[in-house]
């Protein structure tokens, strides 16, 4: 096993230029961290923390203003990537989004959605593709009959499982989950969290888990990084971070989680 981290992010910065005379926004400011192979790292923060922007820079949806992203030891140059390079990156990092109702092309059946990705990356025969589609659906706990369904015939939980299957189709080393369970009902959320744990146990895949929900983060991740206003304020193992938070903001987050005996206190005015 190598000591080389799977993802290395160094001095990452993203500034969104201002428009119509308004000043620009620094969404991410000098963020650095590493993710080891097989690890599950959480990026915790509230809205405006920059956690989603970091995820988008790692998967190539957003171009960093400064700083580097290295995956598997290879830097990802921020310029325009050719088709071959983009395909190669797709086999390294994949992403699951928050909204189950926007994650799937409404006009594509599940088997075509999955089949399209397989056809792009792997030279499989039609029969092999069908087998792989069945395999992926099984991996996410869905009946193969759903291959013929359209998104509008599926529930939120089912759609999110298909989204996970889509992300796993390229056999990526890293799965970035951007609030992937936040929009699901509690009982469905639990099912999907179990599924994610099972997938990780079976394949050793690495997770980058973006979330604002501390309880979910506790359940699913080994280490956590807390972001606020674009910067990292604290980083630790998840257990230590939540049991012994050091930074005042982490303590505030921790104290804001409802539970028995919780008394919300007014701390500030808006």
């Amino acid at each position: 096993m190598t000591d080389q981290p799977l993802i290395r992010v160094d001095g990452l910065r993203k500034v969104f230029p201002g428009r119509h005379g308004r000043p620009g926004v620094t969404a991410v400011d000098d963020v650095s961290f590493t993710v080891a192979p097989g690890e599950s790292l959480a990026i915790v923060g509230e809205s405006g923390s920059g956690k989603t922007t970091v995820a988008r820079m790692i998967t190539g949806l957003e171009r960093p203003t400064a700083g580097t992203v290295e995956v598997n030891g290879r830097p990802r140059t921020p310029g325009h990537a050719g088709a071959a390079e983009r395909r190669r990156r797709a086999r390294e990092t994949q992403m699951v989004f928050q909204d189950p109702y926007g994650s799937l092309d409404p006009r594509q059946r599940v088997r075509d959605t999955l089949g399209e990705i397989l056809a792009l990356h792997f030279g499989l025969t039609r029969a092999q593709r069908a087998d792989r589609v069945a395999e992926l659906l099984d991996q996410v706990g869905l009946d193969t009959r759903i291959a013929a369904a359209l998104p509008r015939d599926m529930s939120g939980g089912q759609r999110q499982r298909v989204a996970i299957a889509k992300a796993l189709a390229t056999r990526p080393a890293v799965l970035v989950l951007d609030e992937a369970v936040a929009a699901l009902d509690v009982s469905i959320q639990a099912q999907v969290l179990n599924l994610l744990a099972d997938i990780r146990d079976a394949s050793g895949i690495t997770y980058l888990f973006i979330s604002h929900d501390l309880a979910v983060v506790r359940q699913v991740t080994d280490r956590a990084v807390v972001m606020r206003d674009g910067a990292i304020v604290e980083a630790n193992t998840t257990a230590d971070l939540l049991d012994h938070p050091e930074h005042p903001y982490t303590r505030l987050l921790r104290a804001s989680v409802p539970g028995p005996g919780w008394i919300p206190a007014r701390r500030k005015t808006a």
Partner: protein
Amino acid sequence: MTLLNVDHLEVTLRRRDGDRPILRDVTFAIAPGEAVGLVGESGSGKSMTARAIARLLPPGARTGGDIVFDGASVPGMGRTELRAYRARDIALIHQDPRAHINPVRTIGDFLTEALRTNAGRTKADAAERATALLAEVGLTEPAHRLRQYPHELSGGMLQRVMIAAALAAEPRLLLADEPTTALDVTTQAEIMAILGELRRDRGLAVLFITHDLELAAATCDRTAVMYAGEVVEDQPSAALHARPRHPYTTALLRSRPTIEATAGRLPAPPGAPLPAYEAPPGCAFAARCPHATPDCETERPRLEPLGTGTVACLRAADIQEATP
């Protein structure tokens, strides 16, 4: 003496392809100054319950059962009575404040409009009252805020404005439909603190609708749990959290990961939550319930008193459960 009594409420929507029951049997009560949490997942009917209480149902909806507010039956109210009820007795706040405030009018206009038309105050008087309310909900520079437009305020600030507007008419019951779901957790804590304070100061009763059982259990005096269009359990919050009686409540509590420790595997119930119109005969939760017997599939359970509250489960007395 109860302020609000919801009695076997049924709501059915009329659609082109047939009738759709949304609420099958909702029963609970709120005493003056009491905070009751109404918890459920998608399809449980919790939002529709709030709308029924405010009589804001979609056109063509049929109701059964009764909603009694301070002795008066809400479905039976005439137009004048209904207007007075909505303007003075109850107030409603929603999940998305931005969708419920006119974006082209100032915050001041929004707050003072109701005061001027319903309470007949002068413009200056209403502005003064609005400023005082904004200060109460914790907004800085309240006089300046009156002149601002909704897009200049964040989600958390707008929700405070909504609360201020809701309280302007001094209602006796606040219907809060997922008011903090779209907010950051720190902002949520703030808003819950404000609501708690205002409640105690004014003796305001609150119906707090949420999908978050922990939040309801921590902030409400009593919690009612809904599934497939009916109330399946209703207990004082502490008791519900420590000793849930209905298998669904137990499943819901256990499905949530805790912040204290990592559970090996979350005991998630199989299947997905149902809306009322997909409920089978018998108990709606039977297919997902670890304690279901063949009786559960044929006989529909009704709310019966048990311990400190009521439960709708045929086997509740047999099951002795406590959350881990």
